[in-house]
């Protein structure tokens, strides 16, 4: 009771120092936990600036930015040329953190982590590898005793950035996948069942014997789920972690395009985890309200410096130094 009174008093005190600058954003759900933390912390440091973020999906963020109802958007995939052409004001892409997508499975009696090659992953999700004791899977996992059981494929049923990253990876490593399915937030899945959200996929995999699915690294790590390693472009089997995901970004940083619209799946580098991706803030290049523009620039500056230090503790991979330096240059171009 006392504590709730204290909280209430705190709220009142907060209300009396009403922020002068409200900033509204909308978009991706994947980075929402760290964005929420960043915005809260930035508000605590600069009480006059309050950033409100609606995490309703990348597509929603882009649509709201195009309609001009929010000050900035956020997306798990770079905007397409068509989407950029529709914007009222040219927007910059600012990578914020990185995430990985991991294959998770439910196989009774298998304790050591499985190894997946691009061929086996694409085959399983294409429906051409239908049994766990397939010769290709056995070859990569010589010490594992696979059951003679049908593989139950579980994928996301809702449109999501996670699906985009996963299908973008499969499109790069498998010509068959590229021509038959392609990469998008929702695709026409050749095999399997759909579960809604990371928790939906995780729940179905956990419940269904002999199932395989894919979830975000953060989700798998926070829920202590078992996940397999994936063979990268250099031929090494790499387990996803904040370090191996950051390494994928560092490998890609060398040929980073000036507008940051880049896919880093199947990135080069011995320790690079191949199913990795940036997530972006979409910031208009020009603000009608100069004070608002200044506030957003201030936030971005803080996010690229102090904000990055908080990423790893929340299982997000921080940006490589080279990328931060490039972003600081782009920041100066905002008016």
């Amino acid at each position, binding site marked *: 009771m006392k504590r709730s009174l204290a909280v209430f008093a705190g709220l009142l005190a907060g209300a009396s120092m009403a922020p002068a600058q409200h900033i509204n954003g909308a978009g991706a759900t994947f980075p929402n936990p760290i964005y929420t933390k960043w915005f809260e912390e930035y508000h605590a440091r600069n009480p006059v600036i309050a950033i409100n973020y609606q995490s309703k999906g990348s597509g929603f963020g882009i649509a709201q930015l195009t309609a001009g109802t929010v000050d900035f958007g956020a997306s798990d995939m770079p905007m397409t040329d068509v989407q950029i052409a529709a914007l009222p004001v040219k927007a910059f892409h600012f990578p914020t953190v990185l995430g990985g997508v991991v294959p998770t499975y439910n196989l009774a009696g298998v304790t050591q982590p499985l190894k997946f090659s691009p061929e086996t992953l694409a085959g399983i999700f294409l429906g051409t590898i239908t049994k766990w004791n397939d010769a290709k899977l056995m070859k990569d996992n010589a010490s594992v005793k696979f059951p003679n059981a049908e593989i139950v494929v579980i994928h996301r049923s*809702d449109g999501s950035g996670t699906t985009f990253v996963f299908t973008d990876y499969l499109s790069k490593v498998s010509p068959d996948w590229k021509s038959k399915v392609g990469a998008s937030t*929702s695709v026409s899945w050749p095999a399997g069942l*759909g579960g809604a959200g990371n928790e939906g996929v995780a729940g179905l995999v956990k419940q269904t014997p002999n199932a395989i699915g894919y979830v975000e690294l953060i989700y798998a790590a926070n829920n202590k789920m078992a996940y397999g390693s994936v063979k990268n472009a250099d031929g090494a089997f790499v387990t996803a972690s904040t370090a191996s995901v950051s390494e994928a970004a560092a490998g890609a940083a060398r040929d980073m395009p000036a507008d940051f619209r880049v896919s880093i799946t199947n990135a080069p580098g011995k320790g690079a985890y191949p199913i990795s991706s940036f997530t972006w803030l979409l910031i208009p290049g020009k603000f009608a309200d100069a004070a608002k523009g200044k506030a957003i620039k201030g936030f971005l500056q803080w996010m690229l410096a102090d904000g990055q230090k908080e990423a790893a503790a929340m299982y997000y991979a921080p940006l490589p130094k080279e990328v931060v330096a490039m972003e600081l240059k782009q920041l100066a171009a905002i008016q």
Partner: protein
Amino acid sequence: MGTVAAVRPSAAGRGAPTGDAIARWVALAFAASILVLALLLILQLWAGSADARHKFGWGFLTSSKWNPVTEEFGALPFLYGTVVTSFLALLISTPLGLGAAIFLSELAPARLSSALTFLIELLAAIPSVIYGLLAIFALVPLMRTTIEPFLKSHFGRLPLFKGVVFGLDYLTASLVLSVMTIPFVISVSREALLAVPREQREAALALGATRWESTWQVVVPHAKLGILGAIFLSLARALGETMAVTMVIGNSPSIRASLLAPGYTIAAVIANEFSEATGVYRGALVELGLVLFCLTILINALARLMIVATTRKGSKRA
């Protein structure tokens, strides 16, 4: 319609006070607002689906492709899944619900009846996501490990029970929907049965009918309209149900004869894919909403026709 008709006699009375006139116009405005709402809904769905309707035409209804990458969309698998699960659900819930309603209104002691009615109304108030969760954790494993293997081994020759068993399929979705619609069938049919005048029952009994004969041949036919209404109300709920269905149907846009195969429904795909959809993709989802709206109107119209047909027969007999 009913409101206006009921108001008219008093307003038509000579020297009606202005209060009545005002009440009449206010009530009319309220009634009209419903019509306006429905029209706005159609207008919005029509406008929002413009690019999809333009691109796919009538082929949208007959195509079974759903590919966001190539932007080819068709409604058929979703239409099929919606209709199959809803009708199967009603096939299960109607006899059960009607039987329970007859028991509650005709046979059960008053105390038991009121206690059970309270419980049934409680069931109707449970949010659908709760039904979905219960289904995922309790029904789906049961279906996968026990019921569906049993069906497959005993009736596996029928095309209805073929294929690999996942537990997430048309049959599970229909069962969940039937559980969700039973309270509606019971509650509304019970009201209809209770509204049958006592004299009808007494007359039947006086003519020497047994209790069952009086119930089945006199009371139930008398309450036929209300019972039909209960069934169609449940059907409407089943057609539009979203959360519970998407959690157990497997979310696979395909058309398969087997009830043990995963499927998809219109409401489920809209809920799943709308937030990430842009352009024609979004238009196609809005058009699915339009299709569902039309399906509901069609079914309601059929219900009206049925009611009109049966009441005519009734009045002729009288």
